[in-house]
């Protein structure tokens, strides 16, 4: 069994889980809990949570970049089987992920959050979901291209 391939994909999926789930709970669930506190305590707690969450997100982005580059390097030959579809999906996934990273880094930069941080976090959650959709479809299209390629190779071998 190719352990490096399995481990790199595992790290990529875990990092994505932590990023998406963290953004969702930070924006939609935890903010409900904060709303019951007085304004001063609520703002202090938000700043402290942001600090912990920033450490998590920065680490997650690093792991996503490293494992993503390695996964792309491993699968690059397969992307040549159906360049039009696979490169379009791969490019969409990379573009959305870059956008999500940029928004995350901007929202979590500095001690005080930007004024539009709630809206930006919600937008970021939607972008992350779209990045997952692109990755999921890319994986399916890649496996389909490989299956079709191997079947045509088998037919040629028989001839």
């Amino acid at each position, binding site marked *: *069994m*190719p352990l490096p*391939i*399995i481990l790199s*994909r*595992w790290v990529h*999926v*875990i990092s*994505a*889980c*932590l*990023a*998406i*789930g*963290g*953004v*969702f*709970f*930070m924006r*939609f*669930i*935890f903010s*409900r*809990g*904060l*709303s*019951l*506190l007085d304004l001063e*305590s609520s703002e*202090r*707690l938000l700043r*402290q*949570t942001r*600090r*912990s*969450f920033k450490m*998590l997100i920065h680490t997650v982005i690093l792991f996503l970049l490293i494992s993503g580059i390695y996964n792309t390097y491993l699968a690059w030959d397969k992307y040549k089987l159906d360049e039009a579809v696979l490169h379009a999906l791969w490019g969409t996934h990379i573009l959305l992920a870059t956008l999500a990273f940029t928004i995350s880094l901007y929202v979590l930069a500095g001690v005080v959050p930007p004024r539009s941080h709630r809206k930006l976090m919600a937008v970021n959650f939607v972008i992350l*979901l779209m990045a*997952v*959709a692109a990755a*999921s*479809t890319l994986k*399916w299209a890649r*496996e*389909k291209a*490989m*299956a*079709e390629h*191997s*079947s045509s*190779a*088998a*037919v040629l*071998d*028989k001839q």
Partner: protein
Amino acid sequence: MNTYFAHTLIYLFSRYLHIVCATILVGGTLFYEMVVPAAIDDLTPEQQLIVFARARWFSKWIVWLCSATILISGGVSSYAHWGDYNRDQVYPAHQSMDGHSQPGQVMELAPLARPGWWWAAHASSGIIAVIIALGLTIGKVPPNQPIRWMRLNLVILLVVMFFATVTRQTRIESGSPPSQSVEPVETAPR
């Protein structure tokens, strides 16, 4: 509607839902286990309880919805790959580097290379993780030591995801029977 198109759409959508719900469960567990306790350390015990109780009430519905979706979408994906999981033979498409396998030759799968076993490990450990997640949200009062339970569940969820990754890898490596791969348009979506 074309049957293949409908199957593909259902399969893709269910996989997407499976991943999204898993991200929310894993990310949410880590968020409550690592981020929140460190942040609320300075609050009074009453304020800590208020924050936790309110967030727990909202996350309860999320956890129940995600658990149900994960079980249903997991069932759909398992159905789509059931043939691969029940196979104990490998169908190499190309000659191997060492020359032991030839295209079209049927070979016995090694126990660790059987996707069915890894699928069983993934499904059973996944069900345990879902039960723990539901147990943490049932009732008006959280169980004793909820953070420890969340820490345990986070480790189980990471193991579940490792089993899922290995299942996929062994499924792809074991290949498809020649009768299935000659006309991929007529087969279940891969």
